[in-house]
């Protein structure tokens, strides 16, 4: 079993969480956000005049109670380009992501996943939980699900949509008979644009006003597209 955190956060310290190793297919994992370079040396590799991006620890709530914003700490990533002056790096437990500065953030956690929402307006546990109305406006979300806990159902659902190489893993989850087989679809949403970068890495865009992978969970469809940066399952397909 592979451990993505050790490679994706080489120097960052997300409080007590950086050492946490998900013994799982941390798939569909918003590993993308964690994969940013930390420190000027790394930033120099992709552009001149790198600037530090503010680090924002986010509050949250979940399985064992509220988490204070100060519990997630870390290094500020350095980015090149004008956009760096408009962005901040928001982090919660094992996940972190770039988003516009001065936005608000809140995380949810459990044995299944760490999920971080960054939005212009403040949100809390009650309006981010799964049974609350979907988010209507601008949003950046990073989610990291474990493939070995109850997070495996979400992992399998997304893997079925995007990664044929994960077919065996998906069928194992279906065979548990905990979630109906009809929940898993072995093809992308019809109107999503999917770019598969390898057998276990993909990116996609859900177009405006369409149901797709980008709008199937907490984000409501509206007149703007939802884009997903490259993400994947850091585990060899053969071990699934």
């Amino acid at each position, binding site marked *: 079993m592979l451990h993505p955190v050790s490679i994706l956060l080489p120097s960052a310290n997300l409080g007590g969480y950086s050492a946490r190793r998900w013994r799982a297919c941390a798939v569909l994992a918003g590993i993308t956000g964690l*994969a940013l370079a930390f420190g000027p040396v790394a930033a120099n590799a*992709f552009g001149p005049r790198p600037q530090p991006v503010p680090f924002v620890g986010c509050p949250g709530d979940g399985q064992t109670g509220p988490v204070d914003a100060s519990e997630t700490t870390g290094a500020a990533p350095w980015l090149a380009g004008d956009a760096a002056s408009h962005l901040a790096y928001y982090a919660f437990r094992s996940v972190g992501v770039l988003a516009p500065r001065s936005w608000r953030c809140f995380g949810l956690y459990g044995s299944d996943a760490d999920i971080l929402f960054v939005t212009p307006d403040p949100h809390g546990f009650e309006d981010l939980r799964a049974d609350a109305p979907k988010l209507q406006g601008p949003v*950046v*979300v*990073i989610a990291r699900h474990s493939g070995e806990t109850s997070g495996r159902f979400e992992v399998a659902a997304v893997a079925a949509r995007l990664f044929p190489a994960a077919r065996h893993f998906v069928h194992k989850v279906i065979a548990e008979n905990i979630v109906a087989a009809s929940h898993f679809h072995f093809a992308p949403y019809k109107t999503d644009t999917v770019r598969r970068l390898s057998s276990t890495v993909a990116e996609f865009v859900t177009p405006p006003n369409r149901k797709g992978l980008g709008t199937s969970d907490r984000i409501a469809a*509206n007149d703007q597209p*939802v884009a997903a940066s*490259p*993400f994947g399952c850091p585990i060899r397909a053969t071990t699934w």
Partner: protein
Amino acid sequence: MTLVRLDPDLRREVRAILTQTERTLGSPELVGRGK
């Protein structure tokens, strides 16, 4: 998985969020490889 929906006037920021990771990784394959 990172999902981004920003208003059109923040298109430049969307690009930065979506592309910086890929640049940093060098190759997206790294994500799939892990260690």
